[in-house]
């Protein structure tokens, strides 16, 4: 997994349109902003929820779902020093993505399945854009995040419809294509920033062979979860790759940053869809796992960048 990063106290960030009183209340309530979500954490539980609300309902942002929230929750606990090996879940999250992103195995079963769930942690999700990760024996006096932002109802509905369309099995590639197998081959590096070490230098994304023709070592060194923008662009919806063609018009285009990690490697990443500021060269970014696109009924997840603001 990526090297640990610290959650941002909510009082330190501009959560757009919130009043000082609301922010103060959030700070008192121990609500933090983590990976672009609102969260509360203690030693045996963690709640992570989307910051977006439609009336009373907490709803997903443009590139989030229960899998991305679950990953964020587990990563938050891990950043606090909590060791989690496996987790019980009755619900439908992408277990393979959670495993690759966090190293935590999701023991999945359905309600009518008699499979015994033996993990020490539970992952609970409901209809809202909220996940709870807690110890199986924890008391239920769990802190809940407060605050949030109103989402534009039309945007939310159109984005939800767009994802439903994109996730259909018949939504297939006619050209450039990353198969499920190819996606999984690079997933450890894509979701965890795992790099290779060669002569003291870190290589990312991983390569197969060196210039002498020797096979490269396994990618096992995580890059730090902070990088610096060296260039950026925002593609108009019409210029976006077809994989994004359903959603790009709703987002007003898609933004990509070219970043350098402190350890040397560079990479290109999408900005999270919630990011609405133009980046600048020299800005620092952190990473969060989000949906990238779906084809053939399978969602490709990956790291996206969030600009770190003072």
């Amino acid at each position, binding site marked *: 997994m990526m090297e640990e990063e610290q959650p941002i106290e909510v009082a330190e960030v501009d959560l757009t349109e919130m009043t000082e009183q609301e922010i103060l209340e959030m700070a008192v309530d121990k609500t933090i902003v983590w990976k672009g979500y609102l969260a509360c954490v203690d030693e045996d539980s963690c709640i992570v929820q989307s910051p977006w609300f439609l009336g009373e309902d907490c709803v997903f942002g443009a590139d989030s779902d229960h899998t991305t929230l679950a990953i964020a929750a587990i990563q938050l606990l891990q950043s606090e020093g909590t060791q989690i090996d496996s987790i019980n879940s009755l619900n439908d999250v992408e277990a393979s993505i959670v495993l690759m992103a966090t190293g935590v195995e999701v023991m999945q079963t359905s309600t009518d399945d008699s499979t015994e769930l033996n993990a020490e942690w539970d992952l609970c999700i409901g209809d809202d854009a909220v996940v709870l990760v807690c110890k199986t024996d924890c008391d239920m006096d769990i802190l809940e995040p407060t605050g949030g932002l109103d989402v534009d109802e039309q945007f939310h509905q159109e984005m939800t419809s767009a994802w439903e369309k994109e996730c259909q099995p018949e939504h297939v590639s006619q050209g*450039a294509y990353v198969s499920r197998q190819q996606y999984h081959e690079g997933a450890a590096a894509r979701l965890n920033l795992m790099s290779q070490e060669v002569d003291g230098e870190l290589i990312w994304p991983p390569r197969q062979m060196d210039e002498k023709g020797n096979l490269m070592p396994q990618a096992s060194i995580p890059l730090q979860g902070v990088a610096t923008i060296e260039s950026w662009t*925002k593609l108009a919806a019409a*210029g976006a*790759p077809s994989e994004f063609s359903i959603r790009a018009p709703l987002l007003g285009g898609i933004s*990509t940053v070219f970043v350098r990690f402190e350890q040397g490697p560079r990479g290109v990443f999408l900005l999270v869809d919630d990011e609405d500021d133009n980046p600048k060269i020299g800005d620092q970014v952190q990473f969060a796992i989000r949906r990238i696109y779906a084809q053939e009924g399978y969602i*490709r997840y990956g790291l996206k960048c969030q600009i770190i603001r003072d």
Partner: protein
Amino acid sequence: MQFSSQMYILLLGNRCYQVPNTPRRVMVDVAVIGAGQTKYGNHPLGLKAMWAEAATNAFNSVDKNFEANLVDEAFIGSVAFGGGQLGNTAAILTEHSGMKGCSVRRVENACASSGFALRDAMMAIKSGEADIVVAGGIEKMNDLSAERKRYWLGVSGDTEWERLAGLTFPGTYALMARRHFHEYGSNHDDLVNISVKNHMHGFENEFAHIRKEVSFEKAASGFMVADPLTLYDCCPTSDGASCVILAADHVVRDFTDDPIWLKGSGAGSDHLALHDRHSITQMSATQKAVAQAYKSSGVLARDIDLAEVHDCFTIAELMATEDLGFANRGEGGLFARQGRGRRNEGDVAINPSGGLKSKGHPLGATGTGQAVEIFKQLKGTVEAPRQIRDAEIGLTHNVGGSGATCAVHIFGRDR
């Protein structure tokens, strides 16, 4: 091949084949004896007819009699955009252009496909295995639905890492542009100057896709495609085919008394993805290719009279002027600002055809299309208003994708 030398009979199955038994020759010089192309743009014809048109124009450009069945080998560059004839592209095209039976293959190196086809054709002659070789290219891009075209655009980038980060080529070149601005103080006005120049050059070219001059103000205020690149920084998607006929020095005089010599060739490659490269404001594939080409031809950058440069985006031309040695490192913007690439005004005429920006960019056809322009310029057969005066030496620079591959060729009136 002209079978004047010894022959022997090869029995395969129940059929006999005559095979030339010529000894291996070395240090063969190679000349261009003919070159032609279709008009680029929204071409009304399909693949086979487009190729036949380009081949016919090439055959007709040969000064003396030429027949298609004289061709020993054919190398045809194509991305096979849209998948219309993805396999055996070269076989079906040569079959329909009188070259049936000769050794053919499709060459694929993204937008540099036919630049490499030209290099392969040259090497086939230099190896002594062939005397007359066709290098060509073709792409049909505008007969696809908009959605299918969007799927195919950008298939030559790093699909797994760049495409998953939302990048196609407008995006990758936009990243290069912004970084160049940051490192060297170049700016978008420099790119606008390139766009205006290439539209001015292409205006008189009857084969150009976009024959329209553009004012600085209009080019500066174009629709933003990939910030900071606007519509006027981007080449169009074009249909087109191009064909070049090469001949070994010992048969050249059978076809022309005024050949254009292929004086040098170079090629290189680099990491496919930008993030793996040493720098995103220069292209090492171009630097490697041009160093080889200058060395093999004995020509220096200052000797070049005209250059067809791969300006798929205006920033690509700016960077190429540095990488090819026409401008100092970081001064590509200044070079453009000072108009040093303008036809018959600057140091060297950059993209006298209009370049990819105005002439058009039918991916696989672009490399040999550049050679067609140089051939005609050096022969003095282009439209009079755009003829480069006293042109003796020309260069072609053909880049694959965002710089993963590059082929450079140098042509001259003198051997």
